[in-house]
């Protein structure tokens, strides 16, 4: 079953590659929002029209495959089980909206999972490209090439004044959301984020936590993206984001250096304590798990812990989410059962790391 290749592994193939500055920037992402001129936008369309639009786009996608996607797979939301869709959301391959609310939604996934082309999301087409580490330029080039390829087959809704016409006014213009996912544990530990993050908002960027409710950032993981899509060129948007991210990288490195210089013993204890908890717990909730995994990743990056691969944070962050837990268990789990299952998975995964070395 082709769907299984995307469900069986928590970590996407592209995530295993070492990226630029990847001890701090886990991934770069470009998302492009596009609509077709001839059809009502998905949010307002009837099911019949949504079906027609979906078929039209799917046929365009199928008519000529592009090498960039490898052996791409088209998945239709209506044909997928709820929990399988949940896993794709947890892997960030599809959006919650596509999984839960779309009419005749679909996604074309590249073999390495770095590309998702969502059909009938809030807009007719959402092109998403993910890259390991800090590499917005190449990520944008890939997304733009796919965009050109699709536009050669489909007539986009476009206006000279307003650019690419989107369902939501916050996406109009370039239709581009550029973002990076950053792991900033030292800035969090040294209490500097409370000052830094509001300053980033001032520059027209948005910072939000991953895997947390509201503004809480579990695992010290933050997504930083552009807020504005209209007026600036794609290149300007990317350059602004790059400038801020470079500053954050510098500040995180400085904070890590400061911790090593002034709090070496405390940091060592914290890191190894978390490794101990993760290695031996039999019950752990997702909040504690992500906090401990962040400590573990920091310890790995600082050379305090050896024999465990750096990508384990990415992998375990995803595999300890409810969808994956339930897939492995092949049943619906209560919160208590999930906490037990989560602890078991983490223990076994860490044991596997030691066994493999």
């Amino acid at each position, binding site marked *: 079953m082709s769907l299984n290749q995307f469900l069986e592994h928590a970590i996407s193939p592209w995530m295993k590659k070492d990226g630029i500055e990847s001890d701090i920037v886990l991934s770069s992402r470009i998302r492009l929002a596009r609509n077709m001129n001839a059809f009502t*936008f998905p949010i*307002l369309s009837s099911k019949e029209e949504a079906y027609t639009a979906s078929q039209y786009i799917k046929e365009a996608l199928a008519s000529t495959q592009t090498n960039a996607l490898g052996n791409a797979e088209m998945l239709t939301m209506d044909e997928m089980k709820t929990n399988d869709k949940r896993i794709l959301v947890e892997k960030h391959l599809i959006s919650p909206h596509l999984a839960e609310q779309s009419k005749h939604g679909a996604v074309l996934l590249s073999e390495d999972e770095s590309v998702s082309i969502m059909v009938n999301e809030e807009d007719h087409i959402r092109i998403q490209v993910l890259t390991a580490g800090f590499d917005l330029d190449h990520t944008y080039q890939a997304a733009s090439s796919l965009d*050109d390829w699709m*536009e050669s087959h489909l007539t986009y809704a476009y206006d000279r004044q307003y650019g690419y016409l989107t369902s*939501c006014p*916050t996406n109009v*213009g370039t239709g581009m959301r550029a973002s990076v996912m950053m792991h900033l544990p030292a800035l969090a530990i040294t209490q500097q984020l409370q000052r830094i993050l509001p300053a980033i*908002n001032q520059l027209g960027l948005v910072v939000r936590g991953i895997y947390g409710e509201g503004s809480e950032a579990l695992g010290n993981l933050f997504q930083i993206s552009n807020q504005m899509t209209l007026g*600036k060129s794609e290149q300007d948007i990317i350059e602004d984001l790059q400038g801020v991210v470079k500053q954050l990288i510098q500040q995180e490195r400085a904070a890590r250096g400061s911790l090593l210089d002034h709090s070496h013993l405390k940091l060592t204890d914290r890191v190894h304590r978390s490794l101990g908890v993760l290695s031996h717990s039999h019950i752990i909730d997702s909040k504690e798990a992500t906090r401990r995994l962040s400590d573990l990743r920091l310890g790995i990056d600082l050379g305090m812990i050896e024999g465990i691969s750096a990508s384990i944070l990415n992998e375990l962050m995803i595999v300890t989410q409810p969808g994956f837990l339930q897939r492995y268990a092949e049943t619906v789990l209560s919160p208590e059962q999930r906490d037990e299952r989560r602890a078991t998975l983490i223990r076994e995964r860490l044991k596997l790391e030691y066994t493999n070395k």
Partner: protein
Amino acid sequence: MRQATLHFTKIINGKKTEMHVCEHCAREKGEAIPGTDSFSIHHLFSGLFHTDDSNATQRDQNTKAELKCPNCGLSYEKFLHIGRFGCASCYETYSTRLSSVFRRVHGGNSKHGGKIPKRIGETIQIEQRIEEMRAMLNEHIQKEEFEKAAELRDEIRALTKQKDIPREGEEEG
């Protein structure tokens, strides 16, 4: 003078721009930036339109409240409520109200400055060229330079034909 928290330097086409933001100003202004929560975004957006309305006369309000997109049927009232467009034509239907709203949502911008789709871009370039030539044509007629005017008229016809012919193999969409 407060100490700046974040220093950001941008160099574009050789021109250097520096931004220094202190945390106090950032916190104050940061609150004015729309959050990423979809609920609050759209209610904020609806609020922007309502704010716009408060400056209109009662008669204008009544007229605009009856606005409805001829293509998808989205009414202005529903547009305000859901905060989203229904189709490409909505942008034209509600065009008189969009620039000021986009300026607020997009940091003062209301005109696209980015990528142009290749196929549409070709059409746009031809249209611009035709407009330029029409202006020149009128100028030649004013000066009674009828030979030049005739030449331009023929070129305009050729470009118009080129613009309207579907590309070979292109599906009508």
